[in-house]
């Protein structure tokens, strides 16, 4: 009883694993926030996705550094990014977001950092199943899993864009009110000013001289 469980445990560890964490963090103005992940084997793929969900012009500065401070990538005022890079060294990878460009706008950044290791072991479906049959099914399931990941990613993209649309419409609404009030005030002021200037021309000693 113990041995199959141990064997299953080992198989499960060796099977294709991806550890991914998706979170949304609020960056205050002038704040820098860093997140770290460990790469334990050489040549693992690290996938880094981020999208600014709300705040200002929806852009952020970011910087990715490898172990020993090795520079991997950085960007300034980017709205979203989706990168996969190979971790050539083992160690701690640092992903930093920087909101120093804003003096009073806070930014919400949705990010996902996934570490994938390539070891794939074909697992037997059940005892007695033919290996060719199993591997076709496996391939199929793997493909479907990949497509589902694409759909989820697309949905995230739509959500980000929808947040931006919402923000544009709200700002349009407040702009309409503000500019209308300014225009009304200007019209009334100009009307009064014109009347009083004309009156001034025709008054007093200058009655006949205009």
């Amino acid at each position, binding site marked *: 009883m113990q041995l199959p469980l141990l064997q299953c445990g080992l198989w499960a560890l060796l099977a294709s694993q991806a550890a991914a964490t998706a979170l949304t963090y609020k960056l205050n103005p002038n704040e820098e926030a860093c997140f770290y992940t460990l790469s334990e084997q050489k040549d693992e793929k690290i996938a880094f996705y981020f999208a600014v969900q709300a705040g200002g012009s929806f852009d952020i500065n970011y910087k990715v550094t490898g172990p020993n401070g090795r520079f991997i990538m950085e960007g300034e005022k980017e709205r979203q990014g989706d990168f996969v890079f190979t971790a050539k060294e083992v160690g701690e990878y640092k992903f930093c977001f920087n909101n120093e460009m804003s003096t009073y706008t806070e930014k919400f950044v949705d990010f996902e950092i996934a570490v994938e290791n390539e070891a794939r072991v074909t697992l037997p479906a059940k005892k007695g199943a033919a290996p060719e049959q*199993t591997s076709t099914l496996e391939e199929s399931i793997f493909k479907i899993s990949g497509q589902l990941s694409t759909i989820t990613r697309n949905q995230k993209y739509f959500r980000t864009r929808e947040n931006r649309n919402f923000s544009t419409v709200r700002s349009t609404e407040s702009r309409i009110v503000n500019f209308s009030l300014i225009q009304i005030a200007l019209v009334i002021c100009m009307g009064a000013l014109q009347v009083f200037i004309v009156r001034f021309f025709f008054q007093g000693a200058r009655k006949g001289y205009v």
Partner: protein
Amino acid sequence: MRPLLLPLLSLAGMARALYFYIDVTQPKCFFEELPKDTLVVGRYLAEEYNDQRGVWERHDGISVYISVDEIFDNDHRVVSQRGGSQGKFTFTAAESGDHKLCFTPSSNSGRSGWLSAASPNGGIRLTLDVAIGETTTLDGADKTKMEDLATRVKDLNARLNDIRREQVFQREREAEFRDQSESTNARVVRWILIQLVVLTVTCTWQLSHLRSFFIKQKLT
């Protein structure tokens, strides 16, 4: 052997998750927009730097306070629990909307002189593994079941359910967006009419005022 293996497996999963450094007693918050009925399972591990041994390790004096508030309707607190240096929390989003997950660590190790995360090796290192949706493969116990193809298909099914729920949420939000656009449109029309009225009134007032002025001055 058996009781040890499963926790070891779960720790192996944690080692590859995201971590960050926080000041003690300072909350670190994450905001998640969740569709209705989404299950969220999170595991965390809090470690502090041990000066004598020179490594980050957990000890029994660390405790982490986890709180989840929904911030779209009266900031109602959904989860409020205090755990040790390692643990797990679960909650289901009752309504669709923004939820705020906050983690506040505290430590009684007495390293209060340099407990700020800004100083080297200061603060608490919090490792987080949060799974949003039904794809909960966090438990060490569940990983051992993944070798069965039928379970893999069930996992695909669960992910499809997640996608469905997100789509329903997207429809609701799109309806809100449509309402907002319509109200902005109506507002434009209303303010233009107000401006036309003000303009006409001003013009009429100007002409009548000047006419009466000129008649008084005996110029007309």
